[in-house]
């Protein structure tokens, strides 16, 4: 391709980082589902665009046993359709499926979903709940963060403008791992979450061994609900303190009113999503401890 200032589409990560190293004002374009919406009717104001959609090295999905790496350019559709992911982390696939519609899922990428840092980013809650780390590459080498520490505000992350998200990695908990993702939208497709909740529960001998809860659209960033987790931690599966946990989760949320829903509803429905979601995971068939 004819390379010209203003639009660059490198073939390698190295080259992409070089471009950013020289001029970090480049807007990074991957799937385009957020960026081109933002610059709708004002594309001439985009300035310099770094199109990373040709970086093959960011398109990998690597699954080695319980260790999983998802490249930043993995699309929502690829996550949703991946049979291994469907088996190991069904709630991540469910979250991916809940995004937009086929076209948006074909275009929108994991990395874009993270970089855009919307409180409603659908992939964030299950990834946080599964303890994912996000990997960044920059001119000074690689960095990584726990995903629940990556977001700093709506549209804001700890990524520097000269860094590129390369992917996320996580380990699927071994043993009896149960999970679910629930989302309330305003309709059944092409819907942005009014509230969402990912529940990841590792069970052992009829008790909650480890629990992680992460919620979308109820705080300035995808929320990790640590206080609610504490209430459920170590509890017996047949006697979970559902109401107490739901009440705590409502308190832990700090939602706002916007065009899609009210603050009051978001908190209230979040508690209900926990009630509904815990019932669902309890009814899931526990994977035997031998795997």
């Amino acid at each position, binding site marked *: *391709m004819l390379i010209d200032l203003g*639009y660059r589409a490198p073939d390698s990560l190295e080259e992409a980082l070089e471009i950013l190293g020289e001029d970090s004002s480049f807007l990074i374009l991957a799937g385009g589902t957020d960026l*081109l919406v933002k610059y709708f009717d004002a*594309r001439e104001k985009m300035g310099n665009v770094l*199109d990373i959609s040709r970086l093959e090295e960011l398109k990998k999905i690597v699954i080695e046993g319980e260790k999983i790496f998802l490249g930043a350019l993995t699309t929502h559709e690829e996550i949703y359709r991946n049979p291994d992911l469907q088996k190991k982390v069904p709630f991540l696939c469910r979250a991916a499926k809940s995004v937009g519609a086929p076209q948006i899922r074909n275009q929108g990428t994991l990395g874009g979903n993270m970089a855009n840092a919307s409180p409603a980013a659908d992939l964030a809650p299950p990834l946080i709940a599964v303890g994912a780390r996000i990997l960044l590459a920059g001119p000074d080498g690689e960095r990584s963060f726990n995903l629940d520490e990556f977001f700093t505000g709506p549209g804001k992350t700890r990524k520097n403008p000269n860094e590129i998200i390369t992917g996320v990695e996580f380990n699927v908990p071994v043993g009896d791992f149960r999970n679910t993702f629930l989302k309330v939208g305003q309709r059944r497709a092409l819907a942005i979450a009014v509230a969402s909740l990912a529940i990841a529960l590792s069970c052992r001998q009829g008790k909650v061994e480890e629990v992680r809860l992460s919620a979308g659209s109820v705080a300035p960033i995808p929320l990790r609900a640590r206080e609610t987790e504490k209430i459920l931690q170590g509890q017996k599966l047949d006697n979970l303190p559902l109401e107490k946990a739901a009440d705590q989760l409502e308190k832990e949320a700090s939602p706002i009113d916007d065009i899609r829903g009210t603050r009051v509803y978001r908190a209230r429905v979040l508690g209900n999503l926990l009630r509904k979601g815990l019932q669902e995971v309890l009814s899931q068939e526990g994977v035997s401890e031998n795997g």
Partner: protein
Amino acid sequence: MAKVKVNLKVNGKEHSLEVEAATRLLDLLRDELGLIGTKEGCGKGECGTCTVIMDGKTVNSCLVLAPQADGREIMTIEGLGSPEALHPLQEAFIKKGAVQCGYCTPGIILSAFDLLEKNPRPTREEIKEGISGNLCRCTGYVKIVEAIEFFNEGRGEHDK
């Protein structure tokens, strides 16, 4: 923004163009190639009227920068059939009354085509899911779903 050279294959035909980098694939198809079957309904990826198939996947062409389509293969509605030689899926849309104002029709047909390529025996729910990125304000979707089912039944008979 600068001009960028874009080579791409559209409906089986190679094209080499120079466009402003900020051009969308949608504009390239309509303004440069005259393929007006691809429509613009919102420009924000919310309505699906600009759906095309890029390298075997449906995309909203309003959310693809033209240079991103460099080296890629695009199929638009014009690549499926013509008024003189309809694709059976297009015929099914006519027969079942799945067309009213017709503005969503090219995009929906491409979504359906792509769905059937990947899933030759979709359930009714899978059909609805497959066209869920294409808004239609006229039909209530009923006859669109029926048309896709009808096409598939016909195809099933051919298979026998």
